[in-house]
């Protein structure tokens, strides 16, 4: 199992990385917070840590720490537009419940 990006998401990540001018990849993770237990984090990565697990997806290095990987395995990150708003969306098969707003989730 792995963590991947859709082609569309990868294209946007690459655009943002090149605009930013530095960074080795995209770090995905979860942290305990929010109203429903867990929340995703999505950050640029400037370096790798020893324990990191790395995936290659459409030319982008996706970095996940092992603790988060438990909750993220099989996740596909997409880039979508909803009305005027656009951004990244986690399609995570582990999720059982999300809170009303969708910002946090339970497994």
């Amino acid at each position, binding site marked *: 199992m792995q963590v991947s990006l859709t082609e569309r998401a990868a294209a*946007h*990540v690459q655009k*943002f990385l090149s*605009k*930013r001018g530095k960074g080795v990849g*995209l*770090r995905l993770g979860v*942290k305990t*917070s*929010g*109203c429903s237990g867990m*929340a*995703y*984090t*999505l*950050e*640029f*990565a*400037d370096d790798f840590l020893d324990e990191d697990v790395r995936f290659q997806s459409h030319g982008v290095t996706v970095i996940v720490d092992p603790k988060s990987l438990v909750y993220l395995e099989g996740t596909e990150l997409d880039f*979508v537009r*909803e*009305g*005027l*708003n*656009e*951004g*990244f*969306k*986690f399609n995570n098969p582990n999720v059982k419940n*999300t*809170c009303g*707003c*969708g*910002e*946090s989730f339970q497994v």
Partner: protein
Amino acid sequence: MALLQIAEPGLSAAPHRHRLAVGIDLGTTHSLVATVRNGSSEVLADLAGRHLLPSIVHYRADAPPEVGDVARAAAAADPKNVVVSVKRLMGRGADDLAKLAPTPYAYGVGAGQIQIETAAGPKTPVEVSADILKTLRERAEASLGGELTGAIITVPAYFDDAQRQATKDAARLAGIEVLRLLNEPTAAAIAYGLDNGSEGIYAVYDLGGGTFDLSILRLERGVFEVLATSGDSALGGDDFDECLVRWAIETAALQTPSDTELRRLHTAARRAKEALSGWPETRFQVELDTGALDLPLTRETFEALTVELVQRTLAPIKRALRDAKLKVGAIDGVVMVGGATRMPCVQRAASAFFGKPVLCNLDPDQVVALGAAIQANVLVGNRSADDWLLLDVIPLSLGLETMGGLVEKIVPRNSTLPVARAQDFTTFKDGQTAMSIHVVQGERELVAECRSLAHFELRGIPPLAAGAARIRVTFQVDADGLLSVSAREQSSGVEATVAVKPSYGLTDEEIARMLKESIANAEADAAARMRREETVEAERLSEATEAALDADGAILLDEEERARIRGALGNLRAAIVAGDIDALRRSSGALNALSQDYASRRMDAAIQTALAGRRLAEL
């Protein structure tokens, strides 16, 4: 499912705590809203993909107001209810109306503010601006998917307290929390400074639709400092259009065109001007009531017509350089801002003046909003502020009135903000227990030539001899350029404070005029100041002599001496009344000489009284 944005390492926002912050460029002709997404700032577009929102509002009798392109489309049919360039009316009082360029609106006056009579009832400039801001807020919330935490709104460097306050009021009315106001050129510098990471001294050349601002900034180790600002508030891209319209009317020998025809001519002029920025020649085409007009127009002709306008931007540059005490060679780069700087002749003139190529790699229409967005993002805490901070300056000196209608400047123009300055003052008369403090703004030496900001009184000063009380007056200007003044008598601690809720009323043009006049009249002002100072001194002398004569003249002086002093005093008073400065000096000197002996006798008498009956050891 909420949509996520990529954050900087370690800065992911916790759920439900996304802080959406935007930068808003509330312009005379166009307004924009920008935000920082995925680490870079971008201007937000509407559904049709348009970035610029024309700053135009159309009021209708029984429908909500329309803002932007739809309102512009309605302008020709319903000019009385379509409000354009409302920024020029911000913070102005009823007495400024007469000085404004003619507009098609019917004005009313309520609560000291201008009101425009529209089909939807009377609207103040603040309300019109609020409608524009509301549209931008809705656009931002739709594209960011949440409520705004706050916004930074940019204002011209020339805006005075009243105009800044009016801008804040408009934002509050639109339901926007203002994180702070930011000078437009400073915002542009942020956009360039952070994107390019260059250090040095920069000039920001901002030629917008209706105003020209020139600022000199120093970027050093990530710190922005505004060294000087200057400008011409009645010069902009619209004047270039006006030039072309006049040329078209002359060339085609048109007889007084109607209002609608004039509007069409202006639109055609703008189109031709924009075309000439890209091509060496174009056609000036417009549909008139009498038929179609189609004139060929080359860039050379256009530049010859407008050369004087371009030259007019150079004087404020020289003034700002002088204020910053810099030579042209000290400028490391020139940042171009405002749509009008797309014109090759403008870029050439600026580049020739500074002797170096100008920076225009960001969209000159967007650069201010982009910079404001970056600053807003820092202020709501989405990004560590690192250690860069921003210093702005006050556009006109702040001071207070002293005896004789003179201005004592407390905070000089171009001081960096926030600033606090204090100065000690004293009483003019014996036993004076109150002091009226008159806060003024301007560059001239006489109060009458400056702008009055506030009056307040400090009461309860302990009765002391003239000159003995010490009253410390403190001026504080916060980061938004708003002023508070406090006065405190040092020995008793009585205090009075005023927050300058500036009376709406000073125009851009007036500020520009005040600056110009202060330079043109520098010598006359200095002479007037000297004259007033001598008069005040002479008045003080005559008061003191009179008081002394009353107190002990009869004891210490014989009849003849008293008569001589009284005679000299009479001469001095006559000179004061006549305003004859030579006679004033002569009679002041004469009185001083005559009373010298008297003064030393008084001193002896005072010492004798003090020492009487005391032993040496007690002293």
